[in-house]
């Protein structure tokens, strides 16, 4: 043991340690991104329903229609489907496939692949399947309802849905077109290739999946024969970095090109740092407060009204949520068809206090559970303070996301503070969960509906309006229908949308055309370039 104790080893170690190993810049054809990617549980488009999983699939697969990263406001555009036609009765849509496109495997992309991809998603019936099954597809009938020939694919619907509604759903991750011939050898039993696709990719997208190590990193290499042209970035590496401060340090040191989870304070301080640029993009997530109608106090209309005035919307958005959220008081995110611009509620302690006293509820105590995520606990604490001023005591229990979600689905969270992200780029995605709840009984177990989780008995006419809006063929009329629903919602609903997410992305100056996906899509890398 003794001879090991020479100082030489220590000297050697410290010499090595001091040697500079940090690289000032990443290679010109490589894009290096720090992001929290620990939510990925599967890369199968029929299963993936997490932000990071969809981020991966967006780049490894193509869809029939898709968004243009350089012009996202234009809405969905033709992608693997070159054009489409709606039948006169509105009961079917036929999409013509683009020719000459091939998968990463070299197989041609056929209408058969597209049909098979949609069919397997319906048959597997995993969580995101509702995006497709809402058009009347079931595992039993899907082979008759989704048909194909050599050049085109036809969807037979159960009702004459608005074409924008159907096509927006085809732009969703679950409608990614999978390489049937490449997957078939890996099918195990009845899994339609789910196990294999969970960790592998078989698409035609601009990038190939080079590696995925859960909670660590995802790597992509460029698909040089991509039908829209080879991507400029030959290699993309996404590394899981959980801490904002760590992401910021990496960005400042030039070890990464993109930091995607910067906290507001970090964003604020590096906004003016040389060599770094912040790009703000509105995302689809809505931060809202759900008031559970099973709670005696919270079901009082006066309290509902008061609560809407107890949130310091501007104060919060200008302080601890600065750069992450902007005040937004309707359930549709900005960027969606028919979004309402009105902001009727203001922070008004006196009014809230008067309302609560009038209702005779001053002195009441509410105990709620909040996910242990920074933004939520801070909002909850701000609310706690203003409620105290207005005569209500709020007790907060911090829990993990899974625990809170569990209780929320069991309708046991009195005041829920959290986010809702749209599932697809059509307004129905949020309308159908915020403003639709046909059966408010416990037995209904409509755990997927936010209105049900908050025990909000949506009035019949609102339920009907929500359904009717999905069938309106004319886009302008449809937009007006959503405006009306949102107005009524703001007036009476106990679910209070408060903020819309803004995603600040920290970029090295030379990174151009970054696109995080806005409110409607996921991140895309193919258009990104790095200048000098």
């Amino acid at each position, binding site marked *: 043991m003794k001879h090991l104790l020479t100082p030489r080893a220590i000297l050697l170690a410290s010499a090595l340690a001091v040697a500079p190993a940090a690289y000032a810049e990443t290679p010109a054809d490589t894009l290096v991104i720090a992001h929290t990617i620990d939510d990925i549980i599967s890369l199968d488009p029929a299963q993936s329903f997490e932000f990071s999983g969809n981020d991966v699939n967006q780049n490894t697969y193509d869809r029939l229609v898709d968004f243009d990263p350089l012009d996202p406001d234009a809405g969905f555009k033709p992608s693997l489907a070159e054009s489409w036609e709606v039948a006169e009765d509105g009961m079917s849509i036929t999409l013509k496939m683009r020719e000459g496109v091939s998968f990463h495997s070299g197989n041609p992309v056929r209408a058969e692949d597209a049909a098979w991809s949609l069919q397997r998603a319906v048959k597997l019936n995993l969580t995101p399947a509702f995006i497709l099954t809402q058009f009347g597809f079931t595992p039993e009938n899907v082979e008759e309802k989704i048909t194909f020939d050599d050049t085109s694919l036809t969807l037979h619907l159960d009702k004459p849905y608005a074409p924008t509604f159907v096509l927006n759903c085809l732009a969703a991750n679950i409608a990614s077109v999978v390489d049937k011939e490449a997957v078939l050898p890996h099918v195990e039993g009845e899994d339609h290739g789910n196990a294999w696709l969970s960790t592998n990719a078989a698409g035609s997208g601009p990038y190939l999946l080079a590696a995925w190590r859960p909670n660590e990193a995802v790597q992509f290499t460029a698909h040089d024969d991509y039908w829209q042209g080879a991507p400029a970035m030959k290699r993309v590496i996404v590394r899981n970095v959980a*801490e*904002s*401060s760590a992401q*910021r*340090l990496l960005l400042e040191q030039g070890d990464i090109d993109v930091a995607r989870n910067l*906290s507001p*304070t*970090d964003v*604020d*301080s590096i906004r003016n740092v040389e060599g770094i640029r912040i790009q703000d993009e509105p995302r689809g997530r809505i931060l809202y407060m759900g008031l559970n109608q099973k709670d005696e106090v919270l079901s009082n209309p006066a309290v509902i009204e008061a609560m809407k005035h107890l949130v*310091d919307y501007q*104060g*919060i958005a*200008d*302080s*601890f949520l600065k750069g992450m959220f902007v005040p937004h008081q309707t359930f549709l995110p900005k960027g969606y068809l028919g979004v309402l611009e009105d902001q009727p509620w203001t922070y008004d302690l006196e009014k809230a206090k008067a309302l609560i006293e009038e209702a005779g509820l001053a002195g009441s105590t509410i105990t709620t559970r909040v996910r*242990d995520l*920074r933004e939520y*606990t*801070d909002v*909850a*604490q*701000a609310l*706690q*303070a203003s409620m105290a001023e207005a005569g209500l005591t709020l007790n*907060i*229990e*911090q*829990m*993990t996301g899974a*625990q809170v979600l569990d209780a929320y689905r069991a309708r046991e969270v009195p005041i829920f503070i959290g986010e809702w992200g749209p599932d697809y780029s059509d307004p129905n995605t949020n309308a159908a969960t915020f403003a639709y709840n046909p059966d408010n009984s416990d037995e209904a177990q409509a755990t997927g509906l936010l209105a049900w989780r908050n025990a909000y008995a949506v009035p019949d006419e609102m339920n009907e309006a929500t359904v009717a809006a999905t069938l309106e063929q004319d886009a302008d009329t449809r937009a007006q229908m959503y405006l009306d629903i949102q107005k009524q919602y703001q007036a009476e609903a106990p679910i209070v949308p408060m903020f819309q997410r803004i995603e600040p992305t920290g970029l090295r100056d030379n990174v151009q055309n970054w696109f995080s996906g806005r409110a409607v899509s996921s991140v895309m890398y193919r258009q990104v370039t790095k200048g000098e």
Partner: protein
Amino acid sequence: MNQTLPQSRREWLLSDAPQTRRQARLGAIYQGWLTFRSNKLAMLGLIVLVLLIGMAILAPWLSPQSPFSQNLAGRLQPPSAAHWLGTDHLGRDILSRLIHGSRITLFIVGTVALIAPVIGLFIGTVAGFAGGWVDQVLMRITDIFLAFPKLILALAFVAALGPSIGNAVLALALTAWPPYARLARAETLTIRNADYIAAARLQGAGPMRLLIRHIWPLCISSLIVRVALDMAGIILSAAGLGFLGLGAQPPMPEWGAMISDGRTYILDFWWVAAMPGIAIFIVSMAFNLLGDGLRDVLDPKGGRQ
């Protein structure tokens, strides 16, 4: 018992030939105190802890502001005359939060220090004294808990019981007892065959009486040393739980949770995380110094020969 004691009292305490058992015992304690007092660092630790206790008791009167009142306009202010230690991300006065937080820290440490050694003492002495299969079973259980990753066991308990300060204390106590059990068992093994135990047994003392009257008192001094040395670890573990959001719940000013709050701002607003960090450091340091001093006094094997 301090320096101002009359000389005669001191002589009585230090007498080489104590008249009564009580005099002998008090004399021993006094001698220990003298040893302890000569250790300047240990005294420093003691003083810090006395101050801490005073601070906790007088918290409402000492703290300049309410630890809960928010001021979003005045958030993240650096230390100044108005806020000696600055304000946090919700504009709360950090000094006031630290002062009130000392109550939580003391509560955690005190409770864990009461529960864990008692469980350990009981299990360890019973195992050591009874021997045979009782020993086997108890020690196997101890092994299982020892083989568990500590923080993860605590996390699991808190996650299972729901996060709160009480459950955090319970979790820490449940993960902290096995070493005490081991220690108590080892001590018991060395003394259970001693002559005076045999003598007591001959006089008809039952096993319970032997355990309580003769074995426990002998184990206690080494346990106390161990506890004092563990206190710092307990504070750090509690802070770790708070840091992970599983300890005290907001808006309670628990120090670990305060660091966790502040870490988002650490690059620009260092004081938000640094102040509670320093507070934890000072207190756990004080416990360590105290523990070191106590070891010199109480542990005959600790190298004071």
